């Protein structure tokens, strides 16, 4: 349990990388990239976790009554999630442009086109 979350984060990242490298469809590649992004969320939140603690949100608990987890990494992850989604959108826009220009979304065919 000590390092399981970190190992899971590393595993998810590596699996995403494998998908990125072997993908035959650029849209699928973008999906694999979002898997890689998920690994960073898991890693960040695992660093901030504290045993038996609760969320650092005091709308329904008395401040100081229970230990809380680290809010700084949560704020980082929060922006990470939204930026991740917009990066996905931007990459998909690039893929659509590639599809328009070259008529294919297979990276190997694209390499052949370039000659």
């Amino acid at each position, binding site marked *: 349990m000590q390092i399981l979350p*970190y190992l899971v984060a590393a595993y998810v990242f590596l699996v995403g990388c*494998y998908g990125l490298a072997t993908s035959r469809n650029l849209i699928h590649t973008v999906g694999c990239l979002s898997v890689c992004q998920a690994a960073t969320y898991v890693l960040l939140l695992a660093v901030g976790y504290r045993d038996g603690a609760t969320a650092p949100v*005091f709308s329904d608990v008395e401040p100081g009554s229970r230990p809380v*987890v680290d809010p*700084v990494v*949560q704020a980082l992850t929060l922006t990470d999630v939204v930026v991740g*989604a917009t990066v996905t959108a931007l990459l998909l*826009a690039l893929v659509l442009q590639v599809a328009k220009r070259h008529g294919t979304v297979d990276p190997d065919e694209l390499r052949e086109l370039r000659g």
Partner: protein
Amino acid sequence: MNRLRLWLLAVGGAGLTALLVAACPGLPRFGGRSHPYGERAVRASLDRHTANTVASVNFDQRAYDTLGEMSILFAAVLGCVVLLRQARDEHRARPEPAAVARPVRRYALIVLPVALVTGLYVVAHGQLSPGGGFQGGVVAATALHLLYLGADYGALERVRPLAVYETSDALAVCAYLVLGLAGVLAGTAFLANTLLPYGTFNTLSSGGAVPLLNAAIGMEVASAVVVLLATFLDQAVEIEEKQGS
């Protein structure tokens, strides 16, 4: 070629795996008690009467980072709009009206206002309960697209004047900057949360400038997502290439 690539990937992946696994024991113990930054952030947040510490970190203690993050969002949307604009060899076809089953239509029309209100609720309570401008903005923007699911693209286009959303996107970024500059003009620092009274803990107006910045982000995210989805929907539904070009 392909085999070579796979070998290269295997070697690199094995090396990276070894390094990552070796790094794991060096990280802070999972569930450990020592979170020096977290404790200080919680104290600072409570000092400023902000119940949701995460919102306090995002919009008060590290508001400058959020500005950067917001510009990434803005730039990404701009990039999408530029990349997916209508090219010279494309034309707009009127999408044929879709026949959507009545229960789905009814469901969409009932859930649409509920989702909009939920989005606004999540934005408005950002500094109190979990939530905030990012989450609420995305929910509100998604809610609008229930019209596409419940009716058709034409219906969505009628209630979605795109120029308004593009303008409000830019306006929200400006509002964030102006709120930051107000601190400079008042003689403190950029985005410093010192101008407004901190209010009563755990009420809607607590936290000084946090609710205002939160609302600006909510508006920005909502309009950005609407513009983003509009460019993709245009591509998928409306814009077609000229035949025989």
